[in-house]
């Protein structure tokens, strides 16, 4: 049976919900609120003049339009690639899934500006690759990526792993018999996909799409690298433009623009929620076997096609990055006699900040993933069972810190935390302010996939445990966590990877000793050391590869479906 408990459940649960909810609100919404205050208070009194002024500028409106276009279409690109890969990897008997999944996660591992950089490197007239192949376009030919299309393409590629990971978690929960029922009714091929499989994964798909859209909306690196040269500003680059200005109302203007981005993100989320409101897909917990489709004779062609796509969209830019890191100066061709590891040596072993940054980023990323898992799992479950007013409001706003451009969030964190109330102490300048910023920022990335999978969880699973007397904590540990583990793992992986080379948030929050990898890469690139930046970016890829190998070794100890490259 399948109904949510409205007013049942214990009072302790209600209290627990309020407690966790308050913590979560403090963590995520407080900085946003603080920032908002900045935008509506002018010299100590509330005023909307500035807001009106900023919102009526043509540059704001066109940036809004551009943001909607690039984030929207970029999401579509991510959807196409992410879905195709998720379906095939999660449900069929492809070979070498681990390698494929790894390649799919590469975009998440490379900071967006580096992605953009490597693409411009392989596409432009100075492309090491094209030069090496001898097919470089003549000098002065335009860079095709400096265009809205380029932004859309790269946003799409950058974020397809989000769709992939969240959707895969949902696909695992489709019981075989439901699809069999469609096939025996005569539904063939794509029809089964479209009418049965896709609707059933809708919660995860919607969650993935929402996160992707919000990520694309707040992305700064790609529109900055590709849009600024083309004179094509999106909201985040407009924010940056304001920051580069010299006026006194900078913060207030930025705050207004941030609110605009936030409003777009929240409306996106609300639209998604509206379309999903009637869905009750209690699939997780079905004792049926999970869906598995043999590809048969189609396997080889499909594999070739997938690897072809991977090659074109992932391996090539990676190669560009690698090539750049192997030549002594930017713009030189890669030949046997020009190859050198000096940049690698320099960045990895000579610069002390690199090692520190590895330690910091690893600690921050894994800490944030863990902390978020601990908060989000009970919170998502309690919110699913008790739909209080506050919970619903929080549900629509929790994406805000993620949607804001990172710089803006870090400004908000500084405003909020530079003076801790009632004390002399400050978190500013310590690693904790970065940690808190990460927790705020990546809350949605962890919460949404878990929420989607809990929406699909058959309440009878929990009820059965209740009826044998299991307390809330035990049920969470023994029943709810293992059943939503694939989604929680997807969330954790996403948080870890994004936080591991995150730049824009830590950019304003780091100080000497608390550098993050993103900051180090950016600073290298910023001071002209593109080669070293590429070498470091490649190192990150190798480190993550090693981590994945470690996970593979431990995979037997995890609940089923946690490791994304296993079915």
């Amino acid at each position, binding site marked *: 049976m399948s109904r949510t408990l409205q007013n049942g459940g214990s009072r302790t649960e209600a209290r627990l919900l309020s407690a966790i909810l308050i913590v979560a609100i403090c963590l995520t919404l407080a900085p946003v609120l603080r920032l908002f205050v*900045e935008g509506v208070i002018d010299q100590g009194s509330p005023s909307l003049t500035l807001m009106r002024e900023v919102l009526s500028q043509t*540059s704001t409106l*066109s*940036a809004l339009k*551009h943001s909607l276009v690039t984030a929207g279409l970029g999401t579509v690109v991510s959807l196409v690639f992410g879905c195709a890969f998720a379906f095939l990897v999660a449900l069929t008997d492809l070979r070498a899934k681990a390698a494929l999944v790894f390649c799919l996660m590469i975009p998440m591992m490379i900071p967006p500006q580096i992605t953009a950089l490597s693409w411009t*490197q392989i596409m*432009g*007239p*100075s492309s090491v690759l094209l030069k090496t192949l001898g097919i470089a376009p003549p*000098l*002065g*030919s*335009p*860079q095709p990526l*400096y265009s809205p299309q380029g932004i859309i393409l790269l946003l799409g590629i950058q974020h397809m792993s989000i769709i992939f990971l969240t959707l895969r978690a949902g696909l695992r929960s489709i019981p075989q018999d439901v699809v069999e029922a469609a096939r025996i009714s005569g539904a063939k091929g794509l029809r089964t996909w479209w009418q049965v499989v896709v609707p059933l994964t809708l919660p995860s798909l919607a969650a993935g799409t929402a996160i992707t859209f919000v990520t694309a909306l707040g992305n700064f690196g790609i529109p*900055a*690298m590709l849009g*600024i*040269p*083309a*004179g*094509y*500003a999106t909201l985040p680059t407009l924010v*940056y*433009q304001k*920051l*580069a*200005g*010299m*006026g*006194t109302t*900078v*913060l207030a203007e*930025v705050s207004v623009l941030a609110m605009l981005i936030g409003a777009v993100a929240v409306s996106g989320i609300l639209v998604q929620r509206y379309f999903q409101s009637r869905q009750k897909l209690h699939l997780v917990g079905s004792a049926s076997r999970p869906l598995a489709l043999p590809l048969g004779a189609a396997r080889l062609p499909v594999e070739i096609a997938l690897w072809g796509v991977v090659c074109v969209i992932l391996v090539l830019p990676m190669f560009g990055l690698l090539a750049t890191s192997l030549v*002594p*100066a*930017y*713009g*030189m061709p890669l030949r046997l006699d020009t190859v050198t590891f000096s940049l690698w040596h320099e960045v990895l072993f000579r610069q002390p900040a690199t090692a520190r940054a590895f330690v910091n980023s690893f600690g921050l990323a894994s800490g944030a993933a863990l902390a978020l898992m601990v908060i989000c799992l009970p919170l998502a479950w309690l919110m699913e069972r008790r739909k209080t007013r506050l919970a619903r409001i929080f549900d629509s706003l929790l994406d805000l810190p993620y949607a804001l451009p990172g*710089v803006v969030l870090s*400004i908000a964190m*500084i*405003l909020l935390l*530079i*003076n801790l109330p009632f004390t002399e102490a*400050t978190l*500013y*300048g310590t690693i904790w302010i970065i940690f808190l910023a990460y927790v705020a920022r990546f809350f949605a990335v962890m919460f949404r996939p878990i929420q989607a999978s809990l929406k699909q969880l058959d309440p009878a699973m929990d009820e059965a445990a209740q009826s044998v007397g299991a307390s809330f904590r035990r049920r969470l540990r023994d029943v709810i966590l293992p059943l939503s583990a694939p989604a929680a793992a997807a969330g954790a992986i996403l948080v870890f990877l994004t936080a591991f080379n995150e730049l824009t948030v830590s*950019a*304003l929050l780091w*100080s*000497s000793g608390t550098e993050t990898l993103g900051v180090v890469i950016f*600073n290298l*690139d*910023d*001071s*002209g050391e*593109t080669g070293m930046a590429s070498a470091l970016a490649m190192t990150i890829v190798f480190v993550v590869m090693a981590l994945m190998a470690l996970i593979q070794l431990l995979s037997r100890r995890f609940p089923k479906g946690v490791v994304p490259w296993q079915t």
Partner: protein
Amino acid sequence: DSITLYTSQPNADAQKTVDAFIAANPGTEVEWVRDGTTKLMARLRAEIEAGNPQPDVLLIADTVTLEGMAQEGLLSAYKSPEAASYDAALHSPEGYYYSTKLITTGLVYNTGVETAPTSWGDLSDASIKGQIAMPSPLYSGAALIHLATLTGDASLGWGYYEGLAENDARAQGGNGGTFKAVASGEKPYGMVVDFLAIRNKAEGSPVEFVFPKEGVSYVTEPVAIMSSAKNVEGAQKFVDFLLSEDGQDLVLDMGYIPARDGMGVPEGFPAREDIKLMAFDPAEALKNAEANKAKFAELFGAE
């Protein structure tokens, strides 16, 4: 005893500066944060807004920003004894800020092109239509100063920029991006800061830097003391050190043109006398900043 420094010098340079200062002033520690000017200013703005600005000393890209801060009362005036050796145009009369080096913006081109430009005017030549890159004043403070300088010049003025727009010049983000576009040959002509081009050329990049015959615009990486400074004495020592001959030698060492009179130039630069500086007034530039940006955006269709 310690001071906090916010600087936009590249990492290695900042380290050298601080090390040299400590060597010269034993007993004064320096906490320093290095970042791009935009980010540093964003950070500083947030700190000021929250009522707790951290730095004692700023050493950042341009005088216009500092002029603005001085007008807001965020800087404290200090008459450095070293000021005498500096051109009056290179520091604020009240002593709010002092320039430490000259970073000029000139022409750059990829060595793969057929004709080398020699003057600003050459960029308006129709034969190189669509092959020009420059930093955007919307995103870069230095570029805004460049714009203010060139449009303020009687012989160039806005007409020059109109010509550039006609020639499909592209306003890249900052100097780094512009340089890359030129070095990669994507846009073989551009305007860029001197050291970037000259240093990379020395390392083998296929570019050439030109000091145009009309003269160059410049930014000066000024130093200033916050009015909220907690260690005013240490901060003043730091300013004095930067302006001193030792401090300026350091600048030379790093490959920039020192601001102090009577110093040499780094390798690869023409003699100081041969570098013609165009006239520039920070207060004027600050006043016109918004109007200039708006006009630029309109000309270059930045949306």
